[in-house]
């Protein structure tokens, strides 16, 4: 079963994402900010990271830049999932190595579509 690390400071969003992803047969792990997500990635690199932008400690963009420098850090697919919906943010994320971008609010269809795009469905 493929592993998805859900990184979001909102427990509600993590719960919603977990339910959707488990419904799509993914195993999920959770982290509430970028720093904790990096620790999780050092332990075991997930297959996909669903990543919020604005979080305390380390935001999603900073996390992505750090992740891509890590050994095997280029391997996970990174799907941003954020309320930062302006084209400038999207371009910046994709330029820094994100694979897909979900603009909140999201639903199961959108998650499915984006996971199809990255080749995981």
């Amino acid at each position: 079963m493929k592993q998805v690390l859900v990184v979001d400071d909102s427990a509600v969003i993590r719960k919603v994402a977990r339910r959707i992803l488990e419904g799509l047969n993914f195993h999920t792990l959770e982290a509430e900010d970028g720093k904790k997500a990096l620790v999780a990635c050092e332990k075991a690199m997930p297959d996909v990271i669903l990543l919020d932008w604005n979080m305390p400690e380390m935001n999603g963009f900073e996390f992505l830049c750090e992740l891509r420098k890590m050994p095997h850090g280029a391997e996970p697919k990174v799907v941003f999932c954020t309320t930062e919906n302006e084209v400038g943010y999207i371009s910046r994320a994709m330029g820094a190595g994100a694979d897909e971008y979900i603009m909140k609010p999201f639903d199961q269809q959108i998650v499915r579509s984006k996971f199809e795009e990255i080749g995981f469905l």
Partner: protein
Amino acid sequence: MNMAFARLRRLLASATGISLDADKLYLAESRLVPIMRANGVVDLAELVRQIEKREDEKLLQAVIDAMTTNETFFFRDRTPFEQFRRDILPELMAKRQDKRRISIWCAACSTGQEPYSLAMLLDEESSKLKEWTVDILATDLSETALDAARRGIYSQFEVQRGLSTSRLLRHFEQHGDNWQVSERLRSRILFRHLNLLSNIGKIGPFDIVFCRNVLLYFDPAIKRDVLSRLSKVIAGDGYLILGAAETAGDANQHFIAASSDFSWRLQRRQPSLQLVAAGA
């Protein structure tokens, strides 16, 4: 059955060919209530009576718009588009070297996602298509859907269904919460109102016709008739692409399956029967 609903079903069938199931009264009422309110019509019986009297042609068009299903999204079902880019387009380019022109018809384009998906693919293949002309005609029964298609403005939800982020950035411009297809793509498509039951012999011929998720709304006789009409506007070596749940079925005197993939049906006209069809 509710008498007014029975008359509405007959009206829709004769105007559009759409076979509305007898148990879909709830669907009709839920979709038509806004039209009845807007026109001061008290109930379904009165609405049907006004349409039958032909007092207001716009009323019939509004009912058609409301009752036609416009559910669609970009790159719907994926496979037909992959097949188009990987197999059909190169094959047709090899066969059309002399004219260097390919004609595509989206016969039920709804709010435009299908023709725009094709236009994106063509744009991405532009290096191979230098000095080629690729025409895209996009038609639909619903004027409301066509207006939306022409504008090419989609909500944040719509652009996230079937569309990759890289394509969103490449082919769209953001306007507040909405996204508009670039002028470059919009200008590639000719949008026209067209009823598939009308005389379509004046258009074409086309190399590829996309007529997806339309035939399933027709009863068998109308489906045969539409397939017969389509066969006359598709080039002998052209393609008809249907929806995932559709086949040419009992109209296979005009088309044969070109692929066995279960998720879609790509049907190709039999060259040997081309003259029979053309002379019929």
